[in-house]
């Protein structure tokens, strides 16, 4: 494989990790949703590039699904949901920003150490993409853990799923059926989550999940 193809793949996958950090940094909901759309767009490019260098045409379909569903439909739907929820649009965090970022760097380092050991001897491009994918997944989880706002937890979940798609595209040979069913299940998850969001808002007048903890009588 020539150097430039590798560099572009490396660049796009690294861009995904960078946008995960951008997601962690955002403190406004709409900016968060825009950053999420950007991540999905980058993912679409990354998958399309993988399709090009692996000469696997079905990955183009994956890239198309990513582009339409995750870069357009889901962000627009979340935008409208947030606008209709009428909650205040700042993201409350459990832990303050700088420790979260440092934790995120620790997670990226961890996923690189783990993935590079585990995938010893595989194709360098696959190894690298897998390491990046694991970091995106872990950063998505970190985002879900450190946020109390339900909408930003949803975004964390969706970005976690972006990491999974990247891993699948790099690993050569995830069948298209699985791909499409994952995409649809994410869409259904979005609908379910949307309904839940409105229920939570109706009940507690906010989408801050700490209200749920208080309601259950758990004290922190």
């Amino acid at each position, binding site marked *: 494989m020539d150097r430039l193809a590798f560099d572009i793949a*490396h660049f796009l996958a*690294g*861009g995904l990790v*960078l946008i995960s950090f951008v997601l962690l940094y955002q403190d406004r909901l709409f900016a968060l949703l825009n950053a999420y759309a950007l991540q999905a767009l980058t993912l679409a490019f990354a998958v399309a590039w993988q399709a090009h260098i692996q000469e696997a045409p079905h990955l183009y379909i994956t890239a198309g699904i990513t582009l339409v569903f995750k870069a357009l439909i889901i962000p627009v739907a979340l935008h409208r949901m947030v606008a209709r929820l009428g909650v205040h649009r700042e993201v409350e965090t459990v832990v303050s920003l700088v420790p979260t970022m440092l934790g995120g760097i620790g997670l*990226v380092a961890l996923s690189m150490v783990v993935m590079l050991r585990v995938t010893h001897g595989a194709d360098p491009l696959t*190894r690298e993409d897998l390491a990046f994918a694991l970091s995106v997944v872990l950063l998505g989880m970190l985002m879900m853990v450190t946020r109390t706002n339900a909408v930003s937890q949803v975004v964390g979940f969706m970005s976690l799923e972006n990491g999974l798609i990247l891993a699948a595209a790099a690993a050569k040979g995830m069948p298209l059926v699985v791909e499409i069913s994952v995409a649809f299940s994410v869409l259904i998850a979005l609908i379910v989550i949307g309904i839940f969001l409105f229920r939570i808002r109706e009940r507690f007048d906010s989408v801050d999940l700490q209200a749920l903890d208080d309601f259950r009588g758990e004290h922190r």
Partner: protein
Amino acid sequence: MLEQLSIQMVQMLLVLFSAPLLTGFIRKVKARLLRKRGPPLLQPYRDLIKLARKEVVVADSASWLFRAAPYLIFAATWVAAALVPTFATGLLFSWSADLIAIIALLGSARFFLALAGMDVGTSFGGLGSSREMMFATLAEPALIMIVFSVALIAGTTQLSYVASFVMYAAGLRVSLVLGLVGLVIVAITENARIPVDNPATHLELTMVHEAMVLEYSGRHLAMIELSSQLKLIVYVSLIACIFFPWGLAPVGAGFNAHVLGFAAYAGKLAAAGGMLALFETTVAKMRVFRVPDFIGVALMLGLLATLLRFMSESL
């Protein structure tokens, strides 16, 4: 030797004379974006000349440091500006154009500025100095981290080698992109541009840089103004040299290559000034206590760049 000396001289004069023009250009673009007419492009030169002619007023409590600081700051910044390759890499002093040396020069300029801010003993000066130092304690590690990652990739901290490495051998690297974003954040912070500090206001709650130089007047103020304009051009040239070295005339190139390098440098300055003006008109100033978060991002990017570089090496 003679050729290198002449290139070095041209470079020193070029940065000195284009620094106010860059500031004027940014102000003009910002004004146009706000649909105002704005001051003419040459206004910063006129301001400097006017200030240089005016009488100097020094507070009674000022020590010798207060008088010496503007010249020290100007000298350190000008030397730093002379070391960064702008249009050609074949500079006489390129053996000493080390990234760490440039950071040290800028750091000592900041040190004297902070001392001068506290020297007179007014509350504003002290406030500005303490804020400046707070930002500096975060921005400098970030800058050093970014320099480390660039140096690890290029295998050297010498700017002319870094530039030729990026131009011919680097390809497209994530670490370099992360370093670029980090360095832009550091540059915005260090030059007291908008999300961190507003260069056009004297509102006491927010000012940082202006608070330190509030006591200066006359030619001292002209020196300080000129050195802050020079600092902006140092950072722009640094970013252009490390990340966008295309067009730089290599060592021993002919006259045409140097003219081309000149044109490329002018283009880079205009692009950087335009983007900075656009960025400044679209974002709001941050609260002072949010600035550490902003600079922390640069530090994080530097760490991440170093990490990714190790990873792509180990494949």
